[in-house]
């Protein structure tokens, strides 16, 4: 009986430790999910709610943050203010749009650096037309003062016309 109780206690402790002290990989995955949630827009999102979400999205990124999108000829560092302004503008242009990340793999080339590859899927509505888009992203995250912050995003263009 005592052994059973001990086993249950160990299981409870292990489960609590898993949730209370997540691994670096789990922290990064949580940040990615949060970023997707903050960049998504509900159909009737108020301006205040949008501003709050954009500010939270900005907190997940380093300052500056490098963005590379070859097809738009963008390859430079964005200051946090500039980045959040762009996210806000995108939310206004694409109301009722949901961001989700799929098939994410994370590697740690250095102790304080993580390299992610993931698929960003956008679903939403423009006027009355529904749309679905997907992009392959290569993301870098750096551990700064104990927090994992995204320091670069680049769109992988694997289809060449």
């Amino acid at each position, binding site marked *: 009986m005592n052994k059973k109780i001990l086993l249950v206690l160990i299981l409870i402790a292990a489960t609590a430790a898993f949730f209370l002290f997540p691994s670096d990989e789990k922290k990064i995955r949580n940040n990615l999910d949060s970023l997707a949630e903050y960049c998504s827009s509900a159909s009737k999102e108020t301006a205040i709610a949008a501003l709050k979400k954009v500010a939270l999205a900005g907190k997940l990124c380093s300052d500056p943050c490098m963005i590379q999108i070859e097809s738009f000829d963008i390859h430079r560092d964005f200051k946090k203010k500039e980045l959040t302004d762009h996210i806000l503008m995108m939310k206004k242009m694409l109301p009722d749009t949901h961001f989700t990340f*799929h*098939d*994410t*793999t994370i590697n740690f080339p250095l102790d304080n650096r993580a390299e992610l*590859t*993931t*698929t960003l*899927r956008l*679903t939403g509505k423009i006027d009355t037309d*529904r*749309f*679905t888009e*997907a*992009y*392959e992203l290569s993301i870098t995250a750096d551990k700064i003062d104990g927090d994992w912050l995204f320091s670069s995003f680049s769109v992988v263009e*694997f*289809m*060449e*016309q």
Partner: protein
Amino acid sequence: MEFSDKIRRFFFPSLNRRYLSRLIFLGLSCYLIFSYLLIPLRIQGHSMEPTYGNGSFAFCWRPHYLFSQIERFDVVTVRFTGKNVMLLKRVIALPGEVLEFRQGILYINGKQILEPYVQYRTPWDLAPRKVKPGHVYVVGDNRGTLMSRHRFGQVNMARIIGGVIP
């Protein structure tokens, strides 16, 4: 045994060890088959219309190209970083071939190619280009959209996950 008993036992079998092991075997088989061999696809978007409409359903048969080569007009799935989100496209040109579009008509190595699966056509114009070794050129069947809004091009064959059924 009465007929009604048989029916009752068929729909509500007793949870014995034999039944549970069969249930676990069935669950595992389904997981392995539908995760790694025959991946269900829910099609979202209009790029493959009319062959595959928005909201339709198909399967990606992964072993399709284990023992055969990719051929022109095959419909294939192209992966991003995994197999949860994929593109569905048709192969129109093979490695080393030169393709071009003139007024929406496909030309391969200078010869006009008939594409009976294309129902919606706009006058796409694309200058001749050669497909790199190890790559294939893929495009959707719906050419009714502007070329700039359609996602197509040459992709590395390593990105092709499999063929499509049906």
